[in-house]
């Protein structure tokens, strides 16, 4: 079980965390990974200036709607 934390603070929200959450949910649904990956929200992680902050296994990624799929692969790859 992997836990992916997505920042939903002010800055990340403006940078599109709503869309990133939607996109991630979609990917998880499509690949039927609901039992393996869990999405949780988090307030500010202190990485406000680099895009939507997404954390998994202590690594913080800067995610946008464009690279969300790529990052998701990266996270899964590190399993």
């Amino acid at each position: 079980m992997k836990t992916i934390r997505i920042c939903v603070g002010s800055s990340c929200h403006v940078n599109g965390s709503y869309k990133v959450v939607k996109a991630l949910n979609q990917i998880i649904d499509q690949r039927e990974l609901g039992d393996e990956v869990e999405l949780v929200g988090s307030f500010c992680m202190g990485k406000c200036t680099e895009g939507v902050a997404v954390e998994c296994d202590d690594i913080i990624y800067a995610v946008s709607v464009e690279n969300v799929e790529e990052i998701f692969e990266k996270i899964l790859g590190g399993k």
Partner: protein
Amino acid sequence: MPLFMDIASDSVNKVHEELCGDNVEVRINDESVIVVLADGMGSGVKANILATLTSTIAATMLEEKMGIMDVLETLEATLPKCSVRHMAYSTFTIVQVFRNRMAYILEFDNPPLVFIRDGEIIELERKEIEFQGKSVYETTKEIEKGDIMAFFSDGVIHAGIGHLLNFGWQWEEAADYILARSYENKKAKDISMALVDTCYNLYGEEPGDDTTVAVIKVEERKYVTIFSGPPLDQEKDAEIKRLLERARGKKIVCGGTAANIVAREFGEEVKVDFSTMSDRVPPIATIKGIDLVTEGVLTLQETLRICDDYMNNRCGREIFQEKNGAAMLANILMNECTTIDLIMGNSINPAHQNPDFPEELTTKWRVTQKLIDMLRSINKEVNIIYV
């Protein structure tokens, strides 16, 4: 502890008029709350000027502790005379409630004020004063918790003439309508909005006269404490815990970093509730022991918009039903508290310094300040505690 005056007013303009010929002036200071409702003769710009002059002069003079005779004389001497009717004329109702719970009511030619206590309409002991051949009625009464004072322009009791009702509805019927609303434990705003809406419908959506209602409801104080923004000095984080532990009423945290600090100091976890996420407002979270946890600046901005809409656009209570942080916060601020203790930190979020960040959001402080001004304008007490 002085009681809280929940004050609200609503108007609709006479059909095809851009300006309202009625005006409500509210003054709030340390000694008293003054509400003046004036109805200028005629309609449109002339009536608007008469009503605005009357209400502003009366409110200002009373605020400066002038006697009521001086106020009447000044009004008489100041108001321009109507060129059609050769009269200077604006009817008005003045209500001044002092901190010691004494209410002073002065009525001139508006429909009588409806005073509700313990589920009944109370007959006021009005004292007649003669002023230049006209009768002005004066009442002094001690107020109690739960009292409602509703007063309105004659547009209310004329509503429906020639449309749904032959002679409009009478004062008794309008008063009964207000009485019925009062049983529903509503806020002043709900009552004024309901009455004006009903009049608008009785007029067939084409009001034959400017219609204005002002309502004052006497309430007990209810507190809420909001922690918004982390302190500049991180060593003060522990003080936040102390402040929140002895906070009055509901506890609210606005701001992501603020939420993290509170969770850390209390040894609790922040759990984000994705079901409250929307495009406009980031989701809320839960921390054990805190009643509401929201994101900061974006939520506050939306909260301000909702409160503004509710106060000015007669959009009703549905606006608070939406499942997001801003609607929940707005509901608490507007409907569930009278006194707000705001714990403000001075720290600046680096994200808000980002030039790409929407300009209207560059400082949370500015949004917060607007919210404070709005709350104070409706007589809510806001105490700011800087940390």
